């Protein structure tokens, strides 16, 4: 019983580390790329606001991952250990897939991975007869998957509008263009905080959602998500940022020097707003995919010299691959754990 909690926490921390190291770094990359913030400033802002977002606004999406997809109460009433091992399998499967994807630089989302792997556990529970297939919250799942299409599109629309307003109000009337861009550097300080907060509020769930589910069923935590669970997820992501994410930010920042502060501001503002809206609606979405949508929106509004839409296909194929792969891996790990421990 205690061992499984420790295993869950370790797996959750590994997932959180990954999110901090790569996803948070992607979210913060634009701030460094435009030259608005130094690497050190970005890391401090990211750490602080990611943590705040996770702790104060991360509960909703965490609840969705924990019990929005699979009816854990029903499975837990058969035996609480099934939920504990199932959630361990889910988090290991997602962590494994994200690690693999990162080595091969595939634009895989941690949110999609965890949703897929939790679903995989639910399906194997149904296969085992613990629950029936119709017990899986298909309606909620459909809403989640629809939000994966809507969020990048919404990011593109919001970014398009934001940049168009900036262009018409400031850029096209500017007598002194560099001074306009300079003003947006200070605004980017605000959007960087906003971005980190939004990211923390949505992505902490990918690391701690399964832990929350297990703790809840084992009676170690009520149906409200305990703050210490979110604190742990937040810390894990901050550690990921501090130990590896800074390198990713640096690499990204040096690659996208063509984004100016007005463009970076537009993309960040749009992304953070869309992500926060989804956190409020309890929907786990991909921040990085939303950011891609936003950058494309700025590009289509004429803000970027060259936008490569090829990445859209890479993202869509990663969606198609992620859910089945994560679900299957999670099911296999669960069966393994079941054979050994149950």
């Amino acid at each position, binding site marked *: 019983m205690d061992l499984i909690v420790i295993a869950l926490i370790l797996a959750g921390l590994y997932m959180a580390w990954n999110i901090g190291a790569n996803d948070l770094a992607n979210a913060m990359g634009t701030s460094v790329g435009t030259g608005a913030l130094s690497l050190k400033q970005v890391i401090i802002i990211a750490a602080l606001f990611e943590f705040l977002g996770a702790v104060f606004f991360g509960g909703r999406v965490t609840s969705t991952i924990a019990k929005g997809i699979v009816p854990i109460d029903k499975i837990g009433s058969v035996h609480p250990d099934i939920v504990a091992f199932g959630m361990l399998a889910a988090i290991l499967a997602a962590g494994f897939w994200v690690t693999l*994807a990162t080595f091969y630089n595939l634009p895989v989302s941690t949110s999609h991975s965890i949703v897929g792997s939790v679903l995989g556990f639910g399906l194997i529970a149904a296969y085992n007869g613990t629950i029936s297939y119709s017990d899986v919250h298909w309606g909620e799942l459909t809403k989640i998957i629809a939000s994966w299409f809507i969020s990048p599109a919404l990011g593109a629309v919001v970014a398009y509008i934001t940049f168009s307003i900036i262009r018409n109000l400031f850029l096209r009337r500017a007598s002194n263009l560099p001074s306009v861009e300079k003003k947006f550097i200070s605004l980017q300080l605000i959007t960087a905080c906003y971005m980190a907060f939004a990211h923390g509020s949505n992505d902490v769930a990918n690391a701690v959602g399964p832990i929350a589910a297990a703790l809840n069923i084992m009676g170690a935590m009520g149906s409200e998500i305990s703050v210490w669970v979110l604190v742990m997820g937040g810390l894990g992501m901050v550690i990921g940022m501090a130990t590896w994410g800074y390198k990713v930010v640096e690499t990204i920042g040096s690659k996208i020097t*063509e984004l100016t502060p007005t463009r970076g501001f537009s993309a960040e503002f749009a992304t953070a707003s869309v992500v926060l809206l989804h956190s409020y609606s309890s929907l786990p979405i991909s921040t990085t995919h939303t950011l891609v949508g936003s950058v494309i929106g700025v590009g289509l509004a004429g803000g970027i010299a060259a936008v490569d839409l090829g990445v859209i296909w890479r993202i869509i194929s990663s969606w198609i691959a992620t859910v089945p792969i994560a679900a299957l891996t999670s099911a296999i790990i669960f069966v393994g754990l079941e054979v050994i421990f149950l």
Partner: protein
Amino acid sequence: MKDYIRSVFDVVSESPFVPLEAHARKGVLAVEKLTEAMEAYCTGNQALLEERTEEIDILEHDADKIKQKIRASIPSSVRLPVNKKDLLSFLKQQDSIADFAQASAYWMTLRPSKGLPDEIKEGFLELMATSLKTARTYEQLVGELYKLLATSFSKEEIKKTLQIVPEVEKLEHDVDVLETALLKKIFEHESDIGGAGVCHLMGLVERVGGIADKSASAADRLRSMILRR
């Protein structure tokens, strides 16, 4: 561990407008070298002419490489704020500037200027200077592109940029006038120069004048690219 990076920022691809400016610079540098080559030709300094010709050759080759790089950087998945076909057609004209500089330099090495009347040498130097001026004004126009992009094509910047186009066209017209006058002089001296000489000089007039022609048509296409966005 070095490659443990998962990023989505390939969505921002390299701007073709930066190498476009570098490409224009190579062309104008080639024309500047050609001006020196022309002086060497007129003073009969064959060694210097050969040297400049080689330098122009390298510049033309560099320009070609940049052109290939620009073409390769805009596959169908890449979106630009301008029409891609317009950009390529203007790049092609811009590329011809270096080509004409190279062709002119080669042409001069074929036959020495010995025995040419001073009047004709002066005509060539003047034609060369005006062609160079046309190319330089054109480069100034290309230099405005980054401002257009930075303001995301503000009307004012477009107006300022497009004001340069008629200047290039005016200079190109001046070159046409100089070409006609020079050809006339060449035929006036046809008995001194000889048939082969006349033929050679006509070719040279055409090539040096071509630099201004190409600058003007590149400017014209640049204008279309900006307006047809």
